């Protein structure tokens, strides 16, 4: 027999002025099952809560209804009051008579009062069907998986590992380092990118809590927060890393030349290669697409010259599995391909290059020894035009967003050009200069004033070739005149674009991505590093364009999130989730197809009646279920129900009015 206690709150004047509360209490007392009803000035106050606690004990109440503000406001407060009194907190219901009655019917007290009575009647009816629920605790596997070994992935892995949590770092290329390793110097301080990055890379390789898996890719992720199971493909490197010393004889002797991705194709690498001298691990891999031994079975030079016998042409891809509790995705970015800019002669003019090609050229370890040269004839350029926003902020040919870093790196390029070629001149076409960051504006000033780069406000209209010069036409909007710059080389500040495999990866991980392929955060402001799927976090440019400091900061933030997740042996979870009554379930698996979280699995249970046969029924994975109720509504035999919002509770509410 239900014994419901109802507490009606005045909320000072908020409810009291617009609802006749004594009348509501009188009406409430008439409801069957209500054993106690009382009004109070502020039920959420300490004495108010004390009153609830006392009444529960004194009147042996079986459920509580508080008629006050929205449950989104104080449900937790009142639940705690119940649990302090030794009552299951989920036996509480809140009737929202403030937001839904007193505040919206301020001119009609009678109607507001009548509506409040109805809302309380509904809450009472619902509370009768309330069940005792208990927080779910889910065990946690304390190992993190970091996908991507760029600066964001490196930082996240190091920070997590420093908290003595094991980390598996998966990188698809032969070395970690990512895009940052390709940079020459970094804005706004102009310190050498390699110099600050390589110590971090070495730390990763030597950290006792980090397992580094280079040349590997994640292929599958199952499970749920705290209990993921990842399948990782270790691609065949054809080199035994255990015995290889990284001496380099093999790649010096290899006869096959392939465009070098690390140098953006400016020069060639061999078919057996280590991407750059500071690579970690500094062991070569064989590029199976180009190695003649692997394609045609002819050559074998590398095996012949290797003194350690580390070359193994028979090596196969290897699948490994790791149990992990959390995932950090840091897959970084690709450069947007400027091909649609036909007016800039992209693809036709060799001396129109992208910013990263320029970056490699001016890099001391780059293909041209740190001096920019014209790809067409190898001469050192004197007049260089830099065009910003190529792809960025261009709905017609590129993407709508601002890539955030181009203003700064173009300023850096202008300075570097001046450093490398003293008698050169930089012309920068810009639309706006976005230099919000510590020391950024000062840095742009340095490019303009100290280096003397000519800044022209306008988007370049066309580039054409005259002799061996490139003629760059654009408007300088500040003087309202069309200018034509005679240039030796043009550098396009191409946009940051999400890593091309992001959509596939997102599908594999079960997280969402935007129309460009950037992975989506759970909330743009308040949950910028989490995804909508619990236990999967984002760091770096995989989420949006970022510069190095921002990527590092976000990576550290993910580390904090991972550490917090792993702070106990188990995790607590809201019990308002779905469950299957196997007796009613007929195993049609329609629920499996509608679940947005893949939280429903199937299991075999005995047929019953002493039969040895089994039948398949659905089963909800408690750890994964978020309690949306999609499966409940489509279950025709009502075999699934949602704790806290059961069919019975809702039908009671419907019938109560």
């Amino acid at each position, binding site marked *: 027999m239900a014994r419901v206690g109802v507490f009606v709150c005045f909320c000072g004047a908020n409810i009291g002025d617009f609802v006749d509360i004594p009348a509501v209490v009188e009406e409430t007392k008439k409801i069957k099952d209500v054993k106690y009803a009382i009004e109070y000035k502020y039920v959420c106050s300490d004495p108010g809560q004390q009153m609830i606690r006392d009444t529960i004990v004194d009147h042996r109440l079986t459920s509580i209804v508080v008629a006050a503000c929205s449950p989104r406001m104080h449900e937790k407060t009142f639940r705690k009051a119940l649990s302090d009194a030794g009552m299951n907190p989920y036996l509480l219901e809140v009737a929202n008579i403030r937001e839904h009655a007193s505040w919206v019917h301020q001119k009609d007290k009678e109607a507001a009062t009548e509506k409040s009575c109805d809302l309380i009647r509904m809450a009472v009816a619902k509370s009768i069907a309330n069940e005792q629920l208990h927080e779910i605790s889910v065990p946690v596997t304390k190992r993190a998986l970091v996908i991507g070994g760029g600066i964001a992935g490196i930082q996240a892995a190091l920070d997590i590992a420093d908290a003595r949590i094991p980390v598996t770092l998966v990188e698809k290329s032969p070395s970690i380092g990512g895009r940052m390793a390709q940079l020459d110097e970094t804005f706004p301080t102009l310190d050498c990118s390699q110099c600050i990055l390589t110590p971090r890379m070495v730390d990763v390789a030597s950290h006792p809590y980090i397992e580094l898996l280079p040349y590997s890719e994640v292929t599958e992720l199952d499970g749920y927060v705290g209990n993921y199971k990842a399948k990782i493909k270790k691609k065949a490197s054809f080199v035994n890393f255990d015995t290889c010393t990284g001496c380099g004889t093999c790649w010096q002797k290899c006869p096959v030349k392939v465009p070098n991705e690390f140098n953006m194709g400016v020069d060639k690498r061999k078919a057996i290669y280590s991407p750059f001298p500071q690579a970690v691990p500094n062991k070569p891999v064989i590029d199976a697409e180009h190695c003649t031994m692997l394609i045609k079975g002819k050559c074998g030079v590398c095996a012949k010259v290797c003194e350690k016998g580390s070359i193994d042409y028979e090596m196969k891809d290897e699948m490994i599995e790791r149990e992990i509790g959390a995932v950090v995705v840091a897959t970084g970015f690709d450069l947007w391909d400027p091909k649609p800019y036909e007016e800039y002669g992209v693809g036709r003019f060799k001396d129109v290059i992208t910013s990263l090609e320029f970056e490699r050229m001016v890099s001391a370890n780059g293909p041209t020894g740190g001096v920019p040269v014209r790809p067409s004839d190898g001469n050192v350029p004197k007049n260089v035009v830099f065009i910003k926003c190529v792809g960025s902020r261009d709905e017609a040919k590129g993407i709508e967003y601002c890539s955030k870093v181009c203003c700064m790196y173009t300023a850096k390029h202008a300075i570097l050009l001046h450093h490398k070629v003293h008698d050169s001149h930089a012309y920068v076409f810009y639309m706006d200069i976005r230099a919000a960051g510590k020391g950024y504006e000062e840095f742009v000033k340095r490019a303009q004033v100290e280096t003397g780069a000519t800044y022209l406000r306008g988007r370049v209209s066309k580039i054409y070739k005259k002799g061996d010069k490139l003629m760059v036409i654009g408007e300088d909007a500040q003087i309202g005149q069309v200018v034509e710059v005679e240039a030796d080389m043009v550098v396009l500040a191409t946009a940051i674009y999400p890593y091309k495999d992001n959509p596939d990866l997102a599908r594999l991980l079960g997280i969402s991505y935007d129309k460009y392929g950037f992975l989506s955060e759970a909330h743009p402001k308040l949950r910028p590093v989490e995804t909508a799927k619990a236990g999967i976090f984002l760091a770096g440019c995989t989420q949006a364009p970022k510069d190095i400091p921002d990527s590092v900061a976000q990576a550290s933030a993910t580390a904090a999130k991972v550490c917090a997740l792993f702070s106990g042996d188990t995790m607590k979870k809201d019990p308002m989730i779905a469950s299957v009554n196997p007796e009613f379930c007929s195993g049609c698996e*329609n629920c499996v*197809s*509608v679940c947005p979280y893949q939280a429903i699995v199937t299991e075999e249970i005995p047929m019953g009646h002493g039969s040895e046969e089994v039948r398949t029924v659905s089963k909800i994975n408690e750890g994964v279920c978020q309690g949306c109720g999609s499966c409940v509504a489509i279950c025709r*035999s*009502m075999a699934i129900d949602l704790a806290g919002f059961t069919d019975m509770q809702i*039908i009671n509410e419907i019938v109560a009015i």
Partner: protein
Amino acid sequence: MDYTMQIQDTAARLFSEEKIDLFIGYRSTGFDNNQVPVLIHHYQDVEQLVFTDKSVFNLTNYLKYEYTRNKRVGLVVKGCDSRSLNLMLTENQVKRENLFIIGIACEGVMNEQGEKAQNCVECVMPDAVIYDELLGAPTGQREYQVNADINELAEQPLIERGTHFEEIFENCIRCNACRHSCPLCYCNKCCIDQETSTLYQGSNTTSGAFHALMTWSLHLAGRCVDCRNCEKACPSHLPLHLLHKQNEQVIYENFQEHLAGMIKDDRGAFYKYSMSDPDDFIM
């Protein structure tokens, strides 16, 4: 359309090769050429089997009962029946490896008045879509036709339509024959019988029938294949197809021309969605 001999031959072969434990087909009642379903367990009984344009029932219904579960079954399916079978396969109610399916490229069956049945006139897919052996010449999918009765009713004023349906609901005796005859009503426990749903409806009342039939038709929305087993089973002769065809039409017109059970592994319309589903009815 008479495939009696072919079906008898195939059934006999299946029994002799011990490929099946049981065969579901039609036999003649000996009365006015009417036929009823028959379950054949033995080789010698295959002579009872017939198939003509009086073979109206959807035999896949028998696959949902315990006496066929986990048995190797041979059966005859027409176009509509094969679609319900497809859905039963998708929804894990039968195992494909247990079935030997004789598909019919159907030319339409007769109603009680000896005319071509309405659902056959309006049929979208007369050929069996899943089979091990196909009899007859397939004619392919046809253009979707709006049900004639629905067309007629939709033009009536609201109040008249309400009255029409009130009569239907009033005449329902809640015997649940419709449910038993539907191959897709295989739930272990029907929601209509559960405590939660019986609350506040009054069982054998107009309102109760309204609730039961509406819920039932919505559970079959996007799944019903218009075999009309339910209508044939109904002792009150209620035009139950009205509810199903109405839903089918709304679903076909709005959700990428969805038709139940046409493709294997294609679930009912409510278990998938498209971003471009109609949104204009929502404020």
